[in-house]
């Protein structure tokens, strides 16, 4: 479980995160939703320490991340996997080397053992025969899947995904959502997903947090999302006029 308490973050003098407190639960897909610019990415980067917060605490299973020294943070990060919006594959390495990279850095296994882990990770995300390809030779969706394979190869306890299916066609998007859900359940890990895609909210949102202008505005389950009377959330969920009519009918 990851517990955030009273997180504040500002750039210059505008607060981008304003008193955010939330628990992300283990074995569940925790979705952060909100419109563009609401602070989802900033929140996720703050959680993994890529951005320093101004105030508040971030606890990973009762380990206070904010108070840690840089080496301690580095150690905790070995339990994290993160999927960046653009994939962030290392473009000088081929697919196999990309996925094997965390293993090379942190495990003392033999090459054949590592190769097995890489292959089973790639298998997991439904990729085969791409080991020797370079990232530039893959499509956007394939890159995202490789990035997921890399994020899970060390069996993390915490998985972060920033907009895993933005820019993908609906079918691939659903596949990736299903994959994230599957991994979360199989490994029983704490997964946090940023999204503004209502489809994935309804597919995988075991717990949904709605961020509005840098503050937590609402939280609940995917079932609750459709029946809330929170006005801001309703405006977000039923953004199109067609959806509004459906709700009112």
């Amino acid at each position, binding site marked *: 479980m990851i517990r955030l308490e009273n997180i504040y973050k500002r750039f210059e003098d505008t607060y981008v995160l304003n008193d955010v407190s939330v628990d992300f639960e283990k074995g569940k897909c925790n979705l952060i939703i909100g419109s563009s610019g609401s602070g989802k990415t900033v929140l996720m980067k703050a959680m993994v320490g890529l951005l320093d917060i101004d105030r508040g605490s971030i606890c990973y299973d009762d380990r206070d991340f904010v108070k840690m020294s840089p080496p301690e943070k580095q150690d905790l990060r070995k339990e994290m996997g*993160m999927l960046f919006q653009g994939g962030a594959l290392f473009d000088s390495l081929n697919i196999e080397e990309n996925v094997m990279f965390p293993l090379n850095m942190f495990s003392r296994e033999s090459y054949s053992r590592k190769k097995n882990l890489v292959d089973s990770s790639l298998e997991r995300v439904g990729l085969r025969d791409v080991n020797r390809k370079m990232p530039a030779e893959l499509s956007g969706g394939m890159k995202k899947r490789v990035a997921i394979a890399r994020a899970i190869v060390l069996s993390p306890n915490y998985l972060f995904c920033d907009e895993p299916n933005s820019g993908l066609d609906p079918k691939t998007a659903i596949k990736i959502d299903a994959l994230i859900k599957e991994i979360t359940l199989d490994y029983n890990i704490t997964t946090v997903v940023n999204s503004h895609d209502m489809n994935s909210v309804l597919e995988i949102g075991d717990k949904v947090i709605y961020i509005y202008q840098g503050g937590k505005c609402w939280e609940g389950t995917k079932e609750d999302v459709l029946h809330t009377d929170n006005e801001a959330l309703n405006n977000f969920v039923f953004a199109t006029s067609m959806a509004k009519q459906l709700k009112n009918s």
Partner: protein
Amino acid sequence: MLKALANIGKYIVLLKNIFSRPEKASIYYRQTLRELENHGIGSIWIIVVISVFVGAAITIQTNFNIENPWLPRYIVGVTVRDSLLLEFSSTMVGLMIAGKSGSSIASEIGMMRVTEQIDALEVMGINPAAFLILPKIIAMVLFMPVLCAVSVAVGLLGGYLVCLIGDVIPVSDYIYGIQYIFYPYYLSYAMFKAAVYGFIIATVAGFYGYHVQGGAIQVGKASTRAVVISSVMILFTNLVITNIILH
């Protein structure tokens, strides 16, 4: 002015990060070999070509300028040797590599910054500054003296060739000149300077790449700035070292 001071501060912080807590040594070893190949071996040809021509040109120039019957002809050889050793093969080579490797280091690291690859390294629990920049520093510091020595040798060869082919001074005078009162100390001095320049190029270029914010345009700007600032620092350092050591 304030921004320059802030940058110096950031530069020192980055250096501190680079030299703290390296991860697995074997990985660094492999990375360093790769950088040696990229920035070392990959630069030999250009240095060879340029040094041959410059050695030849200095020989012709020097001969032309000291055409004085009272001066022995072998003085040309001495001058060529000392110009190469004292300035050209360290400082000029430094400036050329600042242009070649400096811009490539800054844009490589800058591109990794804007595509979040550096963030990805950091979230994996790796110290990205050390992982990316340290192997480049080691490679540059090791290889710049080699490039410098190669440049001296090839430059002298250029002078020799021009004496052989052209009508400058007799080859025997040239050969005598380049051996006349030779201080081996000059060579180690030149190689030492080259090593310092290697450090400057790798760290300054690494610094500008590492702190890129934005996109492709900023990466381009960072790489230009890396070349300009490291060149200026090389010239300045040259002045300081020359003052300290030769006087």
